[in-house]
């Protein structure tokens, strides 16, 4: 068995006395897109933050290429090749697009390669090229999301963590962004760990998926398989049977099979 690129083993992370994730294990192999689904408060963001060192875990291990990286400073983790595209984009509002992208290359000194990668980002997101001199604060939500992904890509990470890229985007824009995520994976060989509430797009773009609920994993499997699961259909895809009365308020009990 090859060593997975990223592995979490029995990770427990606390906010003060409250256990936000309780014993989560997960693997991401080189070249994969892996999706983590879950409702609000399930612990998805906490999971990513624990992986990048923004939060410390109390128990468990985070392994990058088999080496322990848990509880290290986030900047150190970033230098090991993990780029985090946070929820809500968090672009630098008063830097322009070009400068924002350049920030992604903070740890790189191969100027020529960086310039080439910036061009590659413009290739994926032509709209960013048009707006290259504009302050990020004037960009639309979708454009900011593109910029944030581009900034993550510029770091040339081994693993890109995407936290809810679909947040606040129109369905059309969402489809566009996920299309590019799939291309980045295919064309650039970028390994991606994707956290999403939008199960439909996430499972279509990913090869494997995990489902989190109240801080723990309840299900995992190939994305095609998850898309077919009754519970995923009802609770994440909103495809519930209408029931005998044509409207059904009660929820089935989840079994996660």
């Amino acid at each position: 068995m090859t060593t997975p690129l990223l592995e979490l083993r029995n990770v427990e992370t606390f906010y003060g006395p409250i256990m936000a994730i309780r014993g989560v294990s997960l693997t991401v192999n080189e070249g994969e897109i892996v999706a983590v689904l879950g409702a609000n408060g399930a612990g998805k963001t906490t999971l990513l933050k624990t992986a990048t060192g923004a939060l410390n875990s109390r128990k468990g291990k985070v392994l990058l290429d088999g080496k322990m990286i848990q509880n290290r400073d986030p900047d150190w983790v970033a230098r090991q090749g993990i780029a985090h595209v946070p929820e809500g984009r968090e672009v630098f509002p008063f830097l322009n697009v070009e400068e924002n992208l350049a920030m992604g290359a903070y740890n790189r000194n191969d100027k020529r390669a960086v310039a080439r990668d910036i061009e590659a980002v413009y290739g994926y997101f032509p709209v960013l090229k048009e707006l290259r001199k504009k302050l990020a604060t004037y960009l639309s939500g979708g454009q900011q999301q593109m910029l944030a992904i581009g900034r993550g890509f510029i770091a040339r990470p081994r693993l890109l963590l995407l936290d809810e890229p679909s947040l606040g985007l129109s369905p059309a824009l969402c489809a566009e962004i996920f299309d590019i995520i799939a291309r980045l994976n295919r064309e650039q060989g970028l390994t991606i760990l994707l956290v999403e509430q939008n199960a439909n797009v996430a499972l279509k773009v990913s090869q494997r998926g995990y489902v989190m609920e109240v801080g723990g994993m309840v299900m995992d499997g190939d994305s095609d398989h998850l898309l077919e699961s009754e519970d995923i259909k009802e609770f994440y895809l909103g495809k519930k049977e209408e029931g005998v009365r044509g409207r059904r308020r009660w929820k089935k009990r989840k079994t996660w099979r």
Partner: protein
Amino acid sequence: MTPGATLKIDGCSTLPQLFLKKCRERGARIAMREKDFGIWQSYSWDEYREYASQVANGLLAMGLQRGDVTSILSEDCKEWMFADMGNQLAGGISNGVYPTYQPRQVKHALTDSRSRFLFVEDEEQLDKLLEIEADLPLVEKVWVFDWKGLRDFRHDKVAPVEDLYTLGLEYGKENPGRVERIVADGKPEDIAVLVYTSGTTGLPKGAMLSQRYAMYQMSLAPEFFYMSDTDELLTYLPLCHVAERIFSGWLPVATAATINFAESPETVAQDLVELSPTYLFAVPRVWEKFYSRVTTAMSEATWVGKKAYAAALAVGYRRADKLLAGQELTIADNLMFLLADRLVFRNIKKLLGLDRAHGLLSGAAPISESLLRWYLAIGLSVEEAYGQTETGIVTATRRGVFRLGTVGRAFTGVDVRIDGETGEILCRSFGQYSGYLNQPEKTEDTVIDGWVHTGDVGELDDEGNLRITDRLKDIIITAGGKNITPSVIENELKFSPYISDAVVIGDQRKYLTCLIMIDRENVEHYAQTNAIPFTDYKSLCARREIVALIDEQISEVNNGFSQVESIKEFRLIDVLLTAEDDELTPTMKLKRSFVNKKYSMLIDSMYNG
């Protein structure tokens, strides 16, 4: 069996008669409590009678005749009791339907019983019914306890239960005294309730339980069940099950004990702690769960805590073993135990919500001796009762008389004997059931010359204590010709905190094997403490370390048995089963025959290679 004909409690010979009489005496005393938006609300005996009378009058207004069947499809709640008692006051027969049933099972329970009226809990249960509506021409009207989510729903046959209460109120005013007359006309041989037995083979059979059956169980309350008016009970097993019906439905009518409804089947542990009931009837699974919780909590305790627990337990076991051996306790024994109790056991009992409990009873399935010994060690004497739907509860161990491994002596009025040939336990009493509905041939197979053939094998000791060996049909005869009683081995397996249920297999086979259902909580906890990565339940069961852990548990159990009785191979059931699944009975026991069929491939894999 003539003495039964005259069985009376306070001059009453049926449950409805006794109920009306007792309600009048008790008035504003609290009969039951139920949580509403997080706050415990109480309902007095007056209110209980008032609601039940409204149901009775309402049903009469709808044309209910004596002997008509009314079904209730709901989790335990106060409305369940109102509907059940109300129906009986009007002369109806009550049939509880398990809320975990799938629509096709509900259909059988309703058509077989020819139910005319039906109560359902809520929208969810109603939907089950609507799915099979076309197949239920006999059901005339359905009342829903909780109308939430149904505001815009219109259906000729379906109405909120409040409509029935209103109808009953009006009918009662127009026809005063009608219910009382019907109740007075009631006879002990009238059928009170139908209880469908879980039916591990074939469709469930409806056992008919008469008023006399109920009266007999109630007559046992003070002397054999030790229940009194100061007792607080927690109602959490399905009321459709005869055991919960006896303990929560009938005995409180006789004793004035108070029942408290658990919020939901998932919150029983919290409800227990909150209420700290004085009386608890539980199935072995629950007693096993308590023990597992304590074991897990202790494995996480501080060094001092662990030492204190071990020391206290040593004291407790020494005392327990003396009690079991019938030896006198010395003053030192008592003092040491008092100390252990103050320092350790009291906290354990608080943690479980058993610190006030004096009446502890296990039944409905065999329980492990090791478990009972542990309870005795921490100062809780759990009595064991024996019975089944067809016989009622017929034996129980007596307080202060320790006969571990037996279920005690037969109650007054019950004859128990062992069939000389098969070893089967036969029971005869005036409190036994009145046969299976629509299935006289099945009844004839079961009741022969007045003796109920229980299907259990057992023996009587010279004091008359009954020892249960196993279910007759479950006894394994290996290919080598050895008779093996699987439940004894299974119970020892279940004593492990990591094993929730087990099915031993080996009939006509070379050696014994078993299927294991792990205790999810404790195994997850074990995986977490030992850094064993897993994601879902299936992946947990697939971990080498977990298989090794179970292997270790099994080896330990094997040590206590002979070579032929030891488990050679095992497999884990890697699907998290719920009460809705066919593999489990509503009380969450694995169904042996079903499991044997469903997992036959898995079982065969233990014998090939």
